[in-house]
């Protein structure tokens, strides 16, 4: 019986010729990731269990990104725990303030993750790296501790849903509109425990930033992982970047899928997920009566260079609406630097926006843009649960950078229309 792309990567890492959905396997890991919230818990478990060294100092990545630069004393203590662990174990992929970025933008950018990898990360959005043709999934801190100690993890081999992409996205839409459209169709548990395998002739028209954004939100449909085939776009992105040689896997022609979902990219429209679930989607054009107090453009979902460019094209030479706060957060130092060099940073400031150093910050209600009771934000982030960005009586609407930037100019939810 044929295997899906995810199953082929898992089989190879388990040292097996083939695997089938439902099978329990132990797989070798290429990267084990943690951040400043999940790593301290993992470090504690690692020590408590009596482990004294990591399986491979080059295959553990620790990124301080959620609450850094440290938002308060407790956060500073957590960063310190990560820093001391990374130092004492000579972790080569340790990213502190000055070098850090939001983990899921940073690791692909720095070439730490690559095609064919099997990756776990103690962060739910670890599924992002499927965009590069890797099997990558989120786990908790105890799994991270076990992964750091043994270099392996147990998996139940997932079945898959195939998403057959056709056509080309309209110019006012991006990967965010694609994934919000899909989650709106299948629901927040529509892919529970499964792989979301994206394929079809529509893939080649999607940029790497679009693909990273689409795989990033696979977990918002309950999926174990999202994955794209490796093509010329992938290989061009990995060239000169990937630390290890990419390995290309393809789904078998007779691979078995639980279901096939057809997505016509040319029919996608600017889409917004309304409170309080990512599957509560509506066309942006139907939400003009929703006024917003704050706009956030950033996060592991949409803090990449193309997202910054989309926001800049809309905001340059304009003014954000009176009484509205517009917060822009480039996801890595390299992206921030590009914003400075290209003059976008100045244009953002002139438009009345603020620009932060990289951080997850407001996305999870940490800091750098917390909402008061009754306030409303349109954000390019990934979750709009109750209290996600602040007070339990605040609201988050999820959208693309284009929709968020267009809304920043009007003060209400607005789809971007090219002039």
């Amino acid at each position: 019986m044929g295997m899906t792309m995810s199953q082929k990567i898992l089989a190879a890492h388990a040292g097996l010729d083939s695997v089938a959905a439902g099978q329990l396997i132990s797989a070798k890991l290429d990267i084990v990731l943690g951040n400043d919230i999940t790593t301290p818990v993992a470090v504690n478990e690692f020590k408590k269990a009596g482990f004294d060294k990591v399986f491979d100092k080059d295959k553990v990545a620790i990124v301080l990104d959620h609450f850094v630069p440290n938002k308060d004393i407790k956060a500073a203590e957590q960063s310190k725990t990560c820093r001391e662990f990374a130092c004492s174990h000579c972790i080569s992929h340790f990213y502190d303030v000055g070098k850090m970025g939001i983990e899921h933008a940073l690791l692909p950018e720095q070439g730490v993750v690559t095609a064919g990898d099997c990756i776990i990360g103690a962060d739910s959005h670890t599924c992002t790296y499927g965009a590069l043709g890797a099997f990558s999934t989120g786990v908790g801190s105890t799994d991270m501790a076990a992964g750091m100690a043994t270099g392996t993890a147990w998996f139940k081999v997932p079945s898959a849903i195939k998403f057959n992409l056709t056509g080309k996205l309209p110019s006012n839409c991006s990967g965010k509109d694609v994934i919000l459209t899909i989650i709106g169709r299948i629901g927040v548990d529509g892919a529970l425990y499964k792989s979301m395998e994206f394929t079809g002739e529509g893939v080649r028209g999607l940029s790497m930033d679009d693909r990273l954004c689409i795989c990033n939100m696979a977990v918002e449909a309950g999926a174990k992982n999202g994955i794209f085939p490796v093509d010329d776009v992938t290989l061009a992105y990995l060239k000169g970047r990937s630390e290890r040689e990419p390995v290309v896997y393809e789904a078998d022609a007779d691979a078995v899928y639980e279901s096939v979902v057809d997505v016509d990219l040319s029919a996608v429209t600017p889409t917004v997920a309304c409170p309080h679930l990512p599957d509560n989607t509506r066309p942006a054009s139907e939400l003009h009566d929703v006024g917003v107090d704050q706009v956030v453009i950033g996060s592991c979902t949409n803090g990449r260079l193309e997202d910054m460019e989309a926001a800049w094209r809309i905001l340059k030479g304009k003014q954000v609406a009176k009484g509205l706060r517009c917060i822009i957060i480039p996801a890595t130092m390299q992206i921030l630097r590009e914003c400075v060099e290209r003059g976008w940073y100045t244009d953002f400031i002139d438009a009345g926006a603020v620009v932060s150093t990289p951080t997850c910050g407001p996305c999870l209600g940490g800091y750098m843009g917390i909402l008061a009771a009754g306030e409303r934000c349109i954000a390019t982030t990934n979750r709009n649960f109750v209290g996600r960005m602040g007070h339990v009586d605040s609201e988050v609407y999820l959208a693309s950078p284009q929709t968020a930037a267009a809304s920043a100019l009007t003060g209400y939810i607005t789809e971007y229309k090219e002039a």
Partner: protein
Amino acid sequence: MNTKGKAFRYPDNVDTDVIIPARYLNTSDARELALHCMEDIDSEFVNRVQPGDVIVAGWNFGCGSSREHAPLVIKTCGTGCVIAKSFARIFYRNAINIGLPILECEQAAQEIEAGHEVAVDFDTGIITDVTTGKSYQAQPFPPFIQNIIKSGGLLNSLREGSAND
């Protein structure tokens, strides 16, 4: 292994942000975090929960973040078990890894009402609504996962050589 207590009922898609809001995650001290368990969906939960009590919920319990702090605060509050129609996969994995008993049982999750007395036998997977006298059979765990649970979590089972072998 078993638990007995009263039921707290919650809807579908209870997410990790309402189980333990991220604004408190600047610490990993379980007892400190447990003071905020379920705060954004039921601010009275921590005042009312007694050791052995049971959370009963709908589909996709624990969706969202990978934070292991979520099952940890539920366990630290003294909750004996979570019964749901289904669990989000990272929450499911984390609960097993840290030793919080969870059971998937659609009918029990549908029928058990808030405040009912519930008894759960983890060895057999039998859930009893003591108030109504009705019993339910939950999905059993595969032997591999039972081994992790019996060892007291993933890291203990690794030491014993029963996982990842």
